[in-house]
């Protein structure tokens, strides 16, 4: 089996190498990538979108449609995990095994008190970091996704210490469907608002920076909230 794998890898490697070495040199200022559509973003991005961080400008404004479906992809992952059968063949109830474990009183993996303490101590600081990334994302590196990742990290770290069930209880059942869909729903809402304001789906009023920023911030919050909840829930569901 191994020689075949090697052969396959070489077979793939060869054309790829041929492909990449024939690309224009990437560092050069006159490479197509620097003379293409990016020129406009650099030249007029701040003025058109109000975002000094052009990555955010591209992500939310110019190519917001991509980002919309990016958050849909992550929602898909959650729906996928939720749709899969749970448990083993011996336990076909499909009920989350975590609940069963909680009934027995222990789904907490024993951890050292030092770790437990450090995690609980760090959690608020991590949250602050996440919020900073979220709200300063348009001027500094950061943004909704990054914040979501950190939020999820807090959840997961706490989950390891306190047990996933207890962490999962932090989010009330009724809120769950709305929170986990927060990101796509925020996008849909902003898309509709943009449609009303500018006549274009997901359009941002280029002349009104306040509105732009408000809409951008709304999206970022939606992404952070929805993304964080989904990532955390993926972890919780995976546990079972």
């Amino acid at each position, binding site marked *: 089996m191994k020689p075949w794998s090697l052969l*396959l890898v070489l077979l793939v490697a060869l054309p*790829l190498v041929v492909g990449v070495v024939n690309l224009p040199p990437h*560092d050069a*200022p006159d490479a197509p*990538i620097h003379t293409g559509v990016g020129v406009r973003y650099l030249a007029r991005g701040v003025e058109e979108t109000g975002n000094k961080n*052009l990555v955010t400008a591209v992500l939310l404004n110019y190519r917001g449609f991509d980002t919309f479906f990016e958050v849909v992809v992550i929602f898909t992952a959650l729906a996928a995990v939720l749709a899969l059968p749970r448990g083993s*063949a011996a336990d076909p109830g499909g009920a989350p095994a975590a609940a069963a474990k909680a009934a027995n009183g222990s789904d907490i993996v024993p951890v050292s008190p030092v770790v437990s303490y450090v995690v609980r101590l760090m959690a608020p600081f991590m949250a602050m970091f996440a919020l900073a990334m979220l709200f300063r994302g348009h001027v500094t590196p950061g943004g909704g996704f990054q914040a979501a990742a950190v939020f999820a990290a807090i959840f997961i770290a706490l989950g390891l210490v306190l047990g996933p069930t207890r962490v999962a209880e932090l989010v009330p059942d009724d809120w769950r469907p709305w929170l986990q869909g927060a990101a796509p729903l925020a996008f849909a809402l902003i898309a509709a608002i943009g449609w009303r304001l500018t006549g274009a789906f997901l359009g941002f009023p280029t002349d009104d920076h306040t509105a732009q920023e408000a809409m951008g911030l709304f999206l970022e919050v939606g992404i952070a909230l929805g*993304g964080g909840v989904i990532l955390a829930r993926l972890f919780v569901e995976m546990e079972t």
Partner: protein
Amino acid sequence: MLLFGLDLDYVLVVVLFCVGLYMLVSKSNLLKKLLGLNVMETAVFAFIVTSGMIEGGDPPILVAGTAAPYASPIPQAMVLTGIVVAVSVTAVALALIVQIHAHFGTIEVDELKELP
């Protein structure tokens, strides 16, 4: 960086891609296969980000104190999307692997194939 006339950064990216591919096809452990897939994804992301670099460029955040040239913002946005996609795929794959483990008690392909 050029080496023997080859764009070494790009070539290294392909090497990384192939390392991942080799893991994916030759390893028997499903988790290792998944890791291989992640290595491949990383390689492609590296490729995209590399392509957006510019000689002596700054990150594309236009605040006081930075000056042109800037790296292209599009590849970074693309990679951000790519990472989210990769995370999602990994999550689904992990869920499936967890299920396989719960059902068969193993995640070695060699052993799974021998099961009735």
